[in-house]
C-alpha cells in the first residue's frame, strides 16, 4: 500500500453512479468520464459507503480467487490512478462496518478513461454539484 492510508470520494469535483456493478464517474470540472466495473465497481461502492482502504484490501485478499494475486499492488495502482484523476482524495474513512465480499471472481481493478465528450460536458452551467449552490 502506498503512503495514502485513507481516501474518500472527491465530491467537490465528481458525480457518480453505479448501475449493475459498473461505476460511471464524471469529473465535472474537466468533462472527462470514467468507468470501472467488476472488482473496480465494488471498490468504488465500498469507498462511497465510507469503507477504509485496509478493510477493502483485507476483504479482497480473502477471496478464494485472489490466491496468488498481489491484491495490495493491484489496489495501490488503482487508488493511485483514481487520485491522479482527482476522483478520490485523502481523507478519513467514515465507516468501520464489515464489508461483504463481492459476488464475482477476483480480477485486478481497472479504470477506463473517456475524453470523447469533454466538449459536451464541460463549461455548460449550471455544473452538476453536490454542494448547495451559492447565490
Amino acid at each position: 500500500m502506498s503512503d495514502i492510508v485513507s481516501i474518500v470520494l472527491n465530491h467537490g469535483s465528481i458525480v457518480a453512479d453505479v448501475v449493475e456493478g459498473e461505476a460511471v464517474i464524471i469529473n465535472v470540472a474537466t468533462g472527462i468520464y470514467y468507468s470501472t466495473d467488476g472488482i473496480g465497481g465494488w471498490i468504488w461502492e465500498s469507498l462511497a459507503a465510507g469503507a477504509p482502504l485496509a478493510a477493502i484490501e483485507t476483504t479482497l485478499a480473502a477471496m478464494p480467487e485472489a490466491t496468488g494475486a498481489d491484491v495490495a499492488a493491484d489496489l495501490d495502482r488503482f487508488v493511485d490512478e483514481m487520485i491522479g484523476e482527482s476522483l478520490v482524495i485523502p481523507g478519513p474513512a467514515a465507516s468501520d462496518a464489515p464489508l461483504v465480499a463481492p459476488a464475482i471472481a477476483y480480477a485486478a481493478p481497472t479504470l477506463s478513461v473517456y475524453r470523447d465528450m469533454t466538449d459536451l460536458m464541460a463549461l455548460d452551467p449550471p455544473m452538476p454539484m453536490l454542494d448547495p449552490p451559492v447565490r
Partner: protein
Amino acid sequence: MSGALNALLLSFGLPTAAESALLRACLVEDAAARRGATIDELVAAMTDPAAGRRWMLPLLADRLEREGRLSGGVGTRLRAAALHETGRSATFDRITADMLAMLDGAGVPAMLSRGHALALHGYARSGLRHRHDLDLIVAEGRIAAAGAALARAGLGAWEGTAMWRHASGLRIMLHDRPLPCAATTLGSADPWDGAASSRVEDVAFRTPSPTIILLHVLLLPPCSAGRGLAWVADAAVAIRAFPIDWDRIGAVEGVDAFDVLARLDYLARTIELPIPAGPRERLRQTIGRLDRTARDAALIRARRRGGARAMMREARTWAARVALARWMLRPETRGAFGRPRP
C-alpha cells in the same frame, strides 16, 4: 393545391428524415423505432458538437435502459451523458426553487415557462430535459420589481436586459410573456389564466395549463431563429402526461393554424402520438378560410423556418413542386423567398 399545401405544411421547420430517425429513437414507445440504426450510429449523430443534439442522449439512455440494451462502451457513454444531465438538473432545480422562493418572498410570484414546467411536471424526471437558461415569467409590468429582487439577492445583470447571472453561471431570464414574439394569437393570452400548481424542492410554483404549454411548444419555432428540435420531445411529453383540451387546440385561429396543424400532423404521423383527428380537421378548415394576406404571412414564416429549398425538398410529387413554384413566383409572395432583409 393540396400537394403544395401539404409541402407548405411540412416545411414549417419540421425535422428532416435523419432528424426524425433520432427523435423516433428517443420518443417512440415501440422498441422497433430504435432498431433502424445501431446504437453507436445514434449516439454518434447525437454527440456531433455542431448539431446541438446532446439533449437527446438522456432520453435515448432512458429508453435503452428500460429495454435492457444499455451495455458495452456505448452504454457507458450514454450513462455518463445521462448522469451528467441528472447532476446538472439537480443543481438547476435547486436554483429554480431558490429563485422562485425569493421572488415570491419579494411579492413578485413567477411562473415557469414551457420547458422548465415540463421538466419538473411532465418528464419522468427533470434530468431527461436539457435546459440552458432559467426562464421565469412574471406578471406584465413586474419585470423591474423582479429584477430589483434579484439584484438585492446579489445577482448581477447584463445592462439593458432582463437577463441575470447566477453565481453558478446560469443565466436567469425574466419575461412578462411566455413566447419570445407577439406574432402569434397566443401573444395576448394571459398565461396565468388556468395556471396549474406544482412544487419543486418544497417550493410551490405555477405553470401555464397543460393545453397552453402545448400551444406554446407548438408555436415557439416560428418565434425562434434557431432550428431546435426540442419542441418535438416537449410536445410528446405534454401530450402523454396531461389531459389536453383538444377543442382549444383545434380552435387556434389565423396564421398560427398552419404551425399548429403542421406540427400536430408530424407528431401523429412520425412520433406516433395519439392526436385526435377532429381538431386537426378543424385547423385545416381554418386554413382553408384564410385570406391571401394570411397565407402570405404563413409563407414568410415558412421562409424563416427553412424556406423554399425545404419546401421543395418536402414536396412529394413533381406536380406539388410545380404548384409550389408557381405560388412562390407570384409577385405578392416572391419577396418572401428572396435574400433576408437586414
